[in-house]
């Protein structure tokens, strides 16, 4: 009796496996569709791969790491195609890359939860590593070929880079790079401002906006790294120079009222410059450029005693 029961159970199990096997191998089944999508993706037929895989992601394959990976891979492929045809920062390329990252991250998360994680994760890591570097590359390019008003875009690329890196290796710290990026953006805005400073076709408002960006990037760099000497020094110099540039803008067309108003603006800027310059001095009080900066700012504020004090310190430092 017992033997007969065991035999029945074995037969039942075999039938179940048989049906399951048929179901898996059946054309149109989820697993089969994923396989087909993989084949398409391997051949570079990304459109076809996505057409096949993406509807599945909303239903049958929503918990399948392999499916998410293939979709992400295909979008990554399309991103590369768009980059080759136009630029990595074109709207289409950016959109593809963004979806690729999203889908690859999903695949990564699902694979980590799986009973035997690893296979997909390794592939996803490679793909994400590549995409993260394209973001960083775009951030660098964005700084080098900086155009007015692209600050947020450039920062966005960097933030995406950090987001991916944090997933790949949570122990990595990219704060130093973020500080440098902020300082580089400040510099990029300053260089742009200097190039249009004498232009009469550029409005004062536009110049003002650029200057505000310079200041805000340095302030952000200081906020991120309270020990950053260069950000403080450069912020102080920019504020001071801005005041001097206001004074230099005075000419024969300037009225008495405007002269008084410009003086008020200058004094305000000089006072604003003093704080970060003093902070920079307190961080490293042997640096000649800081001593010179303080000597100059105090003189511009007509605080001659203070100015002379730093002049003496500078003379001693030069000896």
């Amino acid at each position: 009796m017992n033997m007969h029961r065991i035999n029945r159970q074995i037969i039942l199990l075999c039938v179940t496996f048989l049906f399951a096997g048929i179901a898996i191998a059946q054309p149109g089944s989820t697993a089969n569709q994923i396989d087909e999508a993989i084949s398409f993706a391997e051949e570079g037929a990304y459109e076809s791969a996505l057409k096949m895989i993406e509807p599945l992601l909303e239903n049958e394959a929503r918990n399948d790491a392999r499916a998410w990976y293939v979709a992400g891979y295909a979008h990554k492929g399309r991103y590369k195609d768009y980059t080759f045809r136009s630029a990595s920062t074109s709207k289409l390329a950016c959109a593809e890359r963004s979806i690729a990252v999203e889908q690859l991250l999903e695949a990564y998360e699902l694979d980590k939860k799986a009973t035997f994680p690893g296979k997909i994760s390794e592939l996803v890591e490679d793909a994400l590593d590549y995409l993260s570097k394209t973001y960083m590359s775009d951030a660098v390019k964005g700084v080098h070929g900086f155009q007015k008003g692209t600050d947020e875009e450039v920062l966005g690329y960097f933030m995406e880079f950090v987001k991916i890196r944090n997933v790949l290796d949570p122990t990595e710290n990219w704060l130093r790079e973020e500080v440098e990026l902020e300082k580089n953006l400040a510099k990029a805005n300053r260089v742009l401002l200097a190039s249009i400073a004498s232009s009469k076709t550029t409005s004062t408002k536009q110049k003002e906006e650029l200057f505000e960006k310079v200041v805000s990037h340095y302030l952000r760099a200081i906020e991120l790294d309270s020990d950053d000497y260069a950000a403080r020094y450069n912020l102080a110099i920019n504020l001071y120079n801005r005041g001097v540039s206001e004074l230099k803008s005075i000419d024969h067309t300037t009225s008495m009222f405007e002269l008084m108003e410009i003086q008020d603006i200058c004094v305000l800027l000089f006072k604003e410059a003093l704080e970060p310059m003093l902070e920079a001095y307190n961080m490293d009080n042997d640096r000649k450029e800081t001593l010179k900066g303080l000597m100059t700012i105090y003189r511009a504020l007509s605080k001659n005693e203070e100015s002379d004090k730093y002049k003496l310190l500078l003379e001693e430092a030069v000896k």
Partner: protein
Amino acid sequence: MHNAKIHKQPINNSVWVVLASVAIIAGLGLAWIQGDQGGPKLDEADTIAITKASFLFQFARSNDWPEETKEGNFKIGIHGNRILFNFLVEKYSSQSIGSQMLEVVWYEEAEMAEFTHILYSESEGEELARLIESTGNQPVMVVTSVNSEIEMPKGSVMNFIVQSSRIRYELDMDNALLRGLIVGNRILSWAVTR
């Protein structure tokens, strides 16, 4: 089979991509380092001189001098501040005051060797007294820069002082009238008192 396929080279990221990525990161690091160099340079222009020069031009433009001085060039004499002199020459020497061309004259000595409509000096004490004396009662707007705690220098018509880190000027109206100078309303209204 497909699991094997998924590991095939085309779908995996190839070696050159990794190498390119390393190059990007290395380039990036270099770019940051380079980016932080060549920061802004301190503008060493003498802001006080610029401000005072701007005031002197306003004084020239907004005050009035007797008719007999309205021939030839309108002269601003500078003593004791070469930077201010250079700035005035550079910025305003091509301008005119009324129908007179503006001319900036440099005085090496504390003496008004030739008539100037405005005479600015940064001297103090005896040297300043000597310079003022050399102007006699001529219609010369003597402008000084003495931060005395008590009063403005004797004989001076205008005197630059510092108030709340700003350059301002005080005016001796009696002296101006005595020299036959007519102080403009704008100049009068911005003058400060102690």
